[in-house]
């Protein structure tokens, strides 16, 4: 039998109609995640066409992008930043009720960022095809699932047919061997990968991360890595399931039990890429070479080691535009640049291990004067866990704000935003112009680096703060 990659195995198992020269493949979707921002027009389309939702039982909804992260008032009501956001959320509630879709609503114990709750409730499992109208759906690939973001028209297609029209993408292996140094995290690893291959480097490809450095990562770290696959242009990112995966999943609400669990694990084990399976392209990195990373520009590929120097102008218009926007001088370090805001959160770095990482540095210390630090857990489950460990108290004692779960300052749709011209160190995934608010200047970094920056009040090396 021909050796197959993890991706090819999952793809083949989900092809309802194979592709031909004239038509794309019809691919079955096992799990469809939806949220308030990219679904309303899709439900409207179904309504206009008189179509029902085919598999509400394979669809799961949450609200996260435009929801407030401040607790509800004494009346139990949440205060939205504006009426439009509230209306969007109201429509999601109505659409889910009408179609019988499970909704993890604001104010309930399971609400959170779609890419945080999928894994933690056990919906995201090896071998599944998972889609969502959100580019960071690649996160779920950490489980050895084929997970990718789709547009709203496609959300409509999946609601109506549970299928998508897809051409088979190419595959790319990103092999990372060796060991990460002290103070170097999964976030630094993926920023280093994107800096290496570029923001369009994996366009048209599904990435599989392999190598000893990936194997030693925990599930939450693997999620951080897969999450940012899209920032390299990748269609999806995946890691083959192993004992780390199974241990994480065992006992979660949506995961099978007993004999079914045993059978599931057995079949999940067979998903790993076969010996000798071929990838369309291969990139190798040595984990030992990776340092704590920070971005200096306006896309995630414009990243460098934290002690590095901003690259010189090279006649490239976009490079010049980015440095102009960021207000940074070419050839200079950004270490020591004063920061205004520190944000720990987002589907990249808002899980319990991320909060522990930040708390470890902040314990017994203070956020520097003049710096606003916001800590936003990825879900209500993460929030409760952090509170049971006393992390919220560490953050509060340090002078940081401890919030309710949501996307918050990652996308600045809910009123949490960075001011014009302000510098923010953020654990999120996008440093695009205006992403954290009009005129906001974002440095992407790990939770450890973010915490170190909060303490020093300027861009700082986490290895010196611990």
């Amino acid at each position, binding site marked *: 039998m021909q050796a197959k990659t993890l991706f090819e195995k999952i793809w083949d198992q989900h092809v309802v109609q194979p592709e031909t020269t004239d038509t794309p493949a*019809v691919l079955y979707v096992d799990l469809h995640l939806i949220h308030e921002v990219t679904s*309303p027009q899709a439900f409207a389309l179904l309504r206009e066409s008189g179509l029902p939702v085919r598999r509400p039982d394979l669809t799961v909804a949450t609200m996260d992008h435009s929801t407030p992260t401040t607790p509800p008032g004494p009346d139990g009501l949440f205060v939205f930043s504006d009426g439009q956001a509230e209306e969007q959320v109201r429509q999601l509630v109505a659409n889910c009720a009408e179609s019988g879709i499970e909704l993890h609503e604001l104010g309930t114990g399971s609400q959170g960022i779609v890419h945080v709750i999928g894994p933690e409730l056990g919906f995201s499992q090896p071998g599944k095809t998972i889609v969502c109208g959100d580019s960071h759906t690649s996160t779920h690939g950490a489980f050895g699932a084929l997970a990718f973001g*789709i547009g709203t028209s496609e959300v409509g297609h999946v609601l109506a047919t549970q299928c998508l029209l897809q051409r088979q993408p190419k595959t790319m292996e990103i092999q990372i061997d060796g060991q990460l140094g002290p103070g170097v995290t999964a976030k630094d690893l993926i920023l280093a990968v994107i800096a290496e291959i570029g923001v369009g480097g994996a*366009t048209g490809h599904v990435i599989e991360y392999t190598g000893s450095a990936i194997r030693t990562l925990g599930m939450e770290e693997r999620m951080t890595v897969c999450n940012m696959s899209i920032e390299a242009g990748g269609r999806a990112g995946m890691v083959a399931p192993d004992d780390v995966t199974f241990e994480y999943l065992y006992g979660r609400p949506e995961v099978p039990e007993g004999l079914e669990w045993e059978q599931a694990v057995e079949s999940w084990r067979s998903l790993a890429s076969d010996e000798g399976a071929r990838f369309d392209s291969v990139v190798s990195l040595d984990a030992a070479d990776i340092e704590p990373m920070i971005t200096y520009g306006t896309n995630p590929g414009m990243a460098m080691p934290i002690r590095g120097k901003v690259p010189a102008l090279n006649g490239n218009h*976009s490079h010049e535009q980015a440095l102009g926007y960021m207000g940074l001088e070419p050839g200079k370090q950004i270490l020591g640049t004063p920061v205004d805001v520190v944000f720990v959160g987002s589907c990249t770095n808002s899980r319990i291990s991320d909060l522990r990482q930040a708390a470890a540095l902040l314990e017994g210390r203070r956020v520097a004067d003049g710096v606003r630090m916001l800590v936003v857990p990825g879900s209500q489950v993460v929030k409760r866990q952090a509170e049971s460990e006393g992390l919220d108290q560490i953050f509060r004692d340090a002078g940081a704000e401890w919030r309710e779960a949501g996307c918050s300052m990652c996308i600045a749709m809910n009123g949490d935003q960075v001011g014009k011209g302000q510098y923010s160190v953020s654990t999120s995934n996008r440093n695009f112009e205006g992403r954290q608010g009009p005129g906001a200047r974002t440095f992407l970094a790990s939770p450890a680096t973010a915490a170190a920056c909060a303490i020093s009040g300027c861009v700082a090396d986490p290895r010196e703060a611990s």
Partner: protein
Amino acid sequence: MSRPPLARFEARFVVLESENVDTDQIIPARYLKGTSRNGLGAGLFADWRYDENGEPRSDFVLNQPHAESAEVLVAGHNFGCGSSREHAPWALLDHGIRAVVSTGIADIFRANSLKNGLLPVVVDHATHGRMLEAGSGSVTVDLEQQVLILEDGTRASFPIDPFSRHCLMNGIDELGFLLDQAEAIAEHERNVSR
């Protein structure tokens, strides 16, 4: 849902030289709070088009006289990267853009564009370079022949998925094709649950 068939058209083009233009620039997140797909042109490139008082910035290409009535946008490499928001092609279409030309277009944006009748055109560096240099002008987009024809007669072929091309040229929505697969889909579901 059907839309007017697309085959061949001649139009003015404008150039936005930046590379890696992400969908957050094409339409900032604050314009994503609506629940309809109409009227999004108002948010198109909002942070580049307008200053903080909402006044048009004269140095932004879409605000310049030659950009008026342009229906083709020529942009730098890797256009449409980032967020999966379909609001990006909706906003471009609402503004009157019918095709985007680049040397590389991000996957999700490309898929979203095709589903809405916005043509993603990937051309070779030489042709792209000529258009960047010209800054503006007229161009013929021929979907049937899959070729872009510049004013000086230069022809550049571009790839497009045959199925998407068929749908665009006949004004067909892809959902219809999927709905026709109902039997095969049900069969797959039976096999999985067995």
